[in-house]
């Protein structure tokens, strides 16, 4: 007989890390442990979501997140429909709500959405019945990425509590940075952000984190460094003179890592711009857990989908 517990997520949606409690994050982690186990078997599929239909609605480009969600959904036996704005009626002038309502009219239970506007999934969650999962909304949040990042730290270092994590790069335009800051703080880690002054939001330290302009200082301080991509597509003006100059001041290379007094763990949410924020000799080194992050991404997303789906009584 199975145990009945009241352990569940409070909200029917996953819109941001900000709304999650520490216990909820830990519940997602412990569920992800079981799915990681499933993913390491020869038959990597379980039938839990066989009567659930999920729409992946991507109004912005994505490779990793979309693939990862799609794999997670398929390994849970859900039916999956994909939608990307580049090949749809959005181009013909349809509104967000109309687009999604049309998809829902086809009896979809969950919507995984990426959108360029911050708050788009929150808007959607207010207006539709289905569970909404935020797969990135503009520069705001990217909750599943933060969950898989912190889960990867948890797996690599045994715990997140008390660890020092530096987030390096384009903090201003990064939803990964904001979600990571929330997740790390809820799990009891210390956070420092590092980047050129133009790419650090002015009041970021009010979140209770440290901030520095000096890459070496950040790396000397931390146990884990999460290196972010320069989001050129979101930058309307020039924030630094050239990529080459950025790379000279904020690029992480082997020589720099070897000169530190300890071996730190290197993370990157992808896609990597090799030679800009991260050199190949670091990205492919033992210290990097970039591919572990990708692997954990599927397990963490399975856990989120499973937990959200399990609330609904049909």
């Amino acid at each position, binding site marked *: *007989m*199975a*145990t*009945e*517990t*009241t*352990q*569940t997520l409070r909200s029917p949606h996953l819109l941001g890390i900000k709304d999650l409690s520490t216990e909820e994050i830990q519940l997602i982690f412990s*569920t992800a*442990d*079981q799915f990681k*186990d*499933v993913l390491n*078997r*020869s*038959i990597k599929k*379980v*039938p*839990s*979501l066989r*009567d*659930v239909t999920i729409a992946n609605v991507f109004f912005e480009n994505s490779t990793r997140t979309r693939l990862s969600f799609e794999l997670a959904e398929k390994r849970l036996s859900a039916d999956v429909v994909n939608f990307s704005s580049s090949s749809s009626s959005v181009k013909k002038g349809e509104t967000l709500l109309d687009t999604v309502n049309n998809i829902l009219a086809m009896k979809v239970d969950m919507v995984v959405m990426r959108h360029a506007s911050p708050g788009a999934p929150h808007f959607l969650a207010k207006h539709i019945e289905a569970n909404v999962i935020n797969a990135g909304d503009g520069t705001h949040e990217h909750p599943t990425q933060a969950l898989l990042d912190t889960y990867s730290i948890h797996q690599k270092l045994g715990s997140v509590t008390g660890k020092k994590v530096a987030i390096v790069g384009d903090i201003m335009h990064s939803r990964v940075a904001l979600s990571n800051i929330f997740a790390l703080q809820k799990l009891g880690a210390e956070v420092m952000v590092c980047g050129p002054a133009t790419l650090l939001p002015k009041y970021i330290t009010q979140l209770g984190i440290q901030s520095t302009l000096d890459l070496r200082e950040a790396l000397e301080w931390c146990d884990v460094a999460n290196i972010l991509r320069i989001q050129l597509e979101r930058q309307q003006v020039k924030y630094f003179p050239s990529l080459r100059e950025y790379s000279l001041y904020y690029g992480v290379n082997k020589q720099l890592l070897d000169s530190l007094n300890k071996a730190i763990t290197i993370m990157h949410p992808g896609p990597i711009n090799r030679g800009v924020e991260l050199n190949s000799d670091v990205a492919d080194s033992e210290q990097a857990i970039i591919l572990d992050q990708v692997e954990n991404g599927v397990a963490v997303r399975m856990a989120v989908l*499973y*937990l959200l*789906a*399990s*609330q*609904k*009584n*049909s």
Partner: protein
Amino acid sequence: MQDRKCIIHAQLLDVMLHRLCHQLIENHRDFEATVLLGLQPRGIYFADRTQRRLEKILGEKVNKGYLDTTFHRDDFRRRDSPLTPNKTDVPFLVEDKNVILLDDVLYTGRSVRAALDAMVTFGRPRKVELMVLIDRKYTRHLPIEPDYVGRAVNTIDSQRVLVEWEEQNEEDGVWITSKATT
């Protein structure tokens, strides 16, 4: 206060376990091609005890795993309280093996159906048998019957049968309680 009655005490439980182990040996002899699979969460203690007893009697290693059925259950999204998964730990393939599924209480049979589904992830067994400590008679929702039974009991739906073990910091024994709410 819940009404709680002991139907099998520690000493009797031990005798029952001993008898069940000998029945297993009678049918399976040396356990070279036979493995035990305890169903999570409560069947694992029964599996542990059975394994230890068999190893003591036979003087050789008996393979055992824990099987979690959560992801294979048929009541997902149909119940008020969500199910929390437990660890599946099957460190061998069941391909061409005789598998003995162990659970503490057999009630509707739905857990066992889910377990049969979960098990095929680890290969195609030659034969599958079911051993339960308590069989609640006339309560089945599915055509599933045990091969080895500790004790068959008559119960009504409003009652609950609880098997407790020392490993859970309880006294060994089987209890019948009336549910406070259904």
